[in-house]
């Protein structure tokens, strides 16, 4: 069912390609459960471009973090393929003036959810995967031991199961038909609510246990499209000296809460931090809590309106809600 969408995506990109520097999209990765980013510069590369529920990566970070993408012919736009969640990162980057709307050509793809390969692997240890495809509400995988079928609900990424914005909020062209959201945003914070019901001790215990696993590899930060400080990140500077190289949960805590606070009212919950974490720490959950507060206090949802000003990036003496 995704062959048609891939075909349509390739045709649309091909039509727009002469006006574009590069198109950032997805291509097949090292096995059928994995995709990897691809940079299409000419029509010859088009056959690499793919769209499927395995296209998990949020590519918008390349627009601000990859010098190769940025340093191109300024008279031409950069093309980028986005899912609903990814498009909100674009909006946030436009709001913060890291990119200009008229510099990018957005190929928007309504998305029914992406597959979290870790959940697949936990359900059934697979070896030598030969093919993987999503059919209606099932994931069918063939490996060395034959065929395996999984219910899609069991293997979708956590963020997809609570997705309120499956359709790109900005796009120049839309590939396929819009999708009905699973939940309204007000109802999308069930996990945070379950955390909130726990006692302070239990929550502290939970986060101590989770964050103690942190290696401080900073993959979460590097994957985040809105973590734009790069090598000026205060996790690694001595001036000011917020963090040291000391080993211990307190330094890990501090890093994750600095990361979360820097994203308060900005995070679009694309889930890249959590996906990139090699230790499987639910780090997006911290940002979800902050976003829930932002929604409740200031009725603001990040990355929805390119003209809006994120509430913590402005000074308004008449601030209501606080």
């Amino acid at each position, binding site marked *: 069912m995704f062959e048609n969408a891939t075909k349509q995506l390739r045709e649309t990109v091909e039509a727009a390609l002469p006006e574009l520097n590069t198109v950032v999209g997805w291509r097949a990765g090292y096995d059928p459960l994995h995709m990897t980013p691809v940079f299409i510069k000419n029509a010859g590369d088009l056959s690499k471009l793919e769209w499927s529920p395995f296209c998990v990566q949020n590519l918008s970070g390349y627009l601000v973090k990859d010098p190769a993408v940025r340093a191109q012919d300024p008279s031409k736009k950069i093309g980028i393929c986005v899912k609903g969640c990814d498009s909100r990162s674009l909006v946030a980057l436009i709001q913060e003036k890291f990119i200009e709307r008229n510099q990018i050509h957005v190929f928007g793809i309504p998305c029914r959810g992406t597959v979290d390969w870790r959940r697949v692997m936990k359900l059934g240890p697979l070896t030598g995967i030969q093919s993987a495809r999503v059919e209606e509400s099932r994931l069918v995988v063939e490996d060395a031991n034959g065929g395996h079928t999984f219910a899609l609900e069991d293997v979708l990424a956590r963020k997809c199961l609570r997705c309120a914005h499956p359709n790109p909020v900005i796009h120049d062209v839309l590939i396929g038909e819009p999708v009905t959201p699973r939940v309204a945003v007000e109802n999308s914070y069930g996990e945070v609510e379950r955390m909130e019901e726990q006692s302070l001790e239990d929550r502290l215990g939970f986060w101590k246990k989770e964050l103690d696993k942190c290696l401080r590899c900073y993959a979460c930060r590097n994957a985040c499209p809105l973590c734009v400080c790069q090598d000026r990140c205060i996790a690694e*500077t001595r001036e000011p000296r917020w963090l040291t190289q000391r080993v211990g949960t307190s330094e890990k805590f501090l890093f994750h809460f600095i990361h979360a606070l820097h994203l308060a009212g900005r995070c679009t919950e694309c889930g890249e931090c959590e996906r990139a974490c090699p230790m499987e720490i639910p780090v997006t959950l911290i940002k979800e809590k902050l976003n829930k507060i932002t929604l409740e206090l200031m009725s603001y949802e990040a990355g929805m309106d390119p003209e809006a000003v994120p509430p913590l990036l402005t000074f308004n003496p008449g601030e209501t809600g606080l």
Partner: protein
Amino acid sequence: MRIGVFVCQCGTNIAGTVDTQEVARRAGNLPDVAYATSYMYTCSEPGQQEIQRAIREKNLQGVVVAACSPRMHEPTFRRAVERAGLNRFMFEMANIREHVSWINNDREANTRKAAELVEMAVAKLRFNQPLFSSQISVNKRVMVIGGGVAGIQAALDCSDGGLDVVLVERKSSIGGKMAQLDKTFPTVDCSSCILGPKMVDVVQKDNITLHAASEVESISGYVGNFTVEVRKKATYVDWTACTGCGACIEKCPSRKVPDVFNENLANARAINIPFPQAIPKKATINRDYCLHFTKGKCGTCQKVCPTGAVNYEMQDEIVTEQVGAIIVATGYDLFDASVYGEYGGGRYADVISGIQYERILSASGPFGGHIKRPSDGKEPKDIVFIACVGSRDASVGRPYCSGVCCMYIAKQAILTRDHLPDTRVWVFYMDIRAPGKNYDEFVRRAQEEYGVQYIRGRVGKVYPKGDRMVVQGNDTLLGVQVEVEADLVVLATGIEASAGARELAEKLRISYDQYGFYMESHPKLRPVETNTAGVYLAGVCQGPKDIPSSVAMGSAAAAKVQALFSRDTIETNPQVALVNERVCISCGKCIQVCPFGAIQWKELRGGIRKAEVLPSVCQGCGLCNATCPPKAIQLQHATDNQILAEVNALCA
């Protein structure tokens, strides 16, 4: 760094509950501390000399004084270390009085806390850097916001001192609440007779620019160099042409316009001059009632105006004024008596507010100075005054005393008995507050010479009976219930912050209390200053007060401005934000959040943009620092590393 620590005993203020010797001993063990001692009164002349001696003899590079709140004496000690050759920012203060000795009696805990506060101060000082001020020029023009008696006095005093003054008044005439009063206590002299000449002076002074019917739109800049945008509201009459002849008012067919100046006891016209002594005496059209604006078919005033001043097309105009200081004298409003439903204010025509009675008493008022009641124009035979309506009552959010009502009731009672000697007057009161010069004598005169019946107790209910009102209350001195039948009930409505006071405070970046009154810098020692340099307060906008106090405060604010303007330049505060360009990621978030517009883009070679702070505009609030993700922007003297050092000292 070689640091000296001086632990002040403040007589017994600190030493009473803190072992200052022990605090000094522990400080001596801290890293970089080369000298630590305890002293009786560190702020005294010998105390300061002791610091200076130690700096020289021990070759100190930084000094910590553990004493009182830095609010008062930080400048004292900064000057002291500067005289001994140190930079004034190589000094830190630990507050072990207000934060320790005065709030707890546990000597051991106090000593420990004091020692920890000293440790924090030392830890911060180790990261301190010498900072230097620069000089900025002063624009010697002053703006006065509000043209009541306090603002008029401030404007006239500044003008007399040779300063250019810009006076901004929201209404179409200056004069404020005092212009509405009939007589003033305790001398019972005519209000407009004493205020009028001052109002006239305002327009006759060449160096006062008056913007009436105008409001402050926005304020930017800083002490010495404010830029204020003033919105001159459309009056639909060209005031340069209007002579105030009143021909338009006479002919205006819209005659049912509430007369605001007369507290709605009479009707005005849609084109109006609020009162005969108005300054400027210029007509203004009220759009809400003008037939030209509401029905689109009248132009009488335009036709009859002998100078052709009426202009229906007039628009609001924004004028920009550059000033070096601002005096805020925005006055007050009166409590809405209808909040007390049981008194019937706003419901019964013959239950009126104190200011309405003031207009009734006034010879230029709705009844020409004859006391009549609003419902049927009869002379009242029995009048009841009810004190503290919207004062000293936490249940209506007004727990404070308005300070003037006891006095104005006494005045109105005396005037009533003067006008109508046969009328009987009752006053229901909670306490008599008459603490001014000749004030208590005045109230006694009302009671003893004028036979006004003072009943100590609250009124429970006021209700109509026939064409009269029944006032039910209790007399707490006799312990009995009282019922008085009256023809007229006057509610002594209290003072509340002026409408829009909070919004103006935000523009001025000054603080206000929970009731909307502006906060002075120090309740005793800096009563007319605000915490924003160059902004001063006068009159009731700071809190309830009577006319003499308002006038005194107007003069005091003017004196403060004169002192400020006696210098040609002002020293800037170097405790401002500073950008480390190597770290700045050019995201511009600091520019977006700065409440003062103090940060701008700076273009480097190759079109690279970095944030840049304008030190003279920066107020050092730290919002940019909190927002900056890589912390490239740091508040000098409160850098992240300095604060982290303090936190680490405390938490280690």
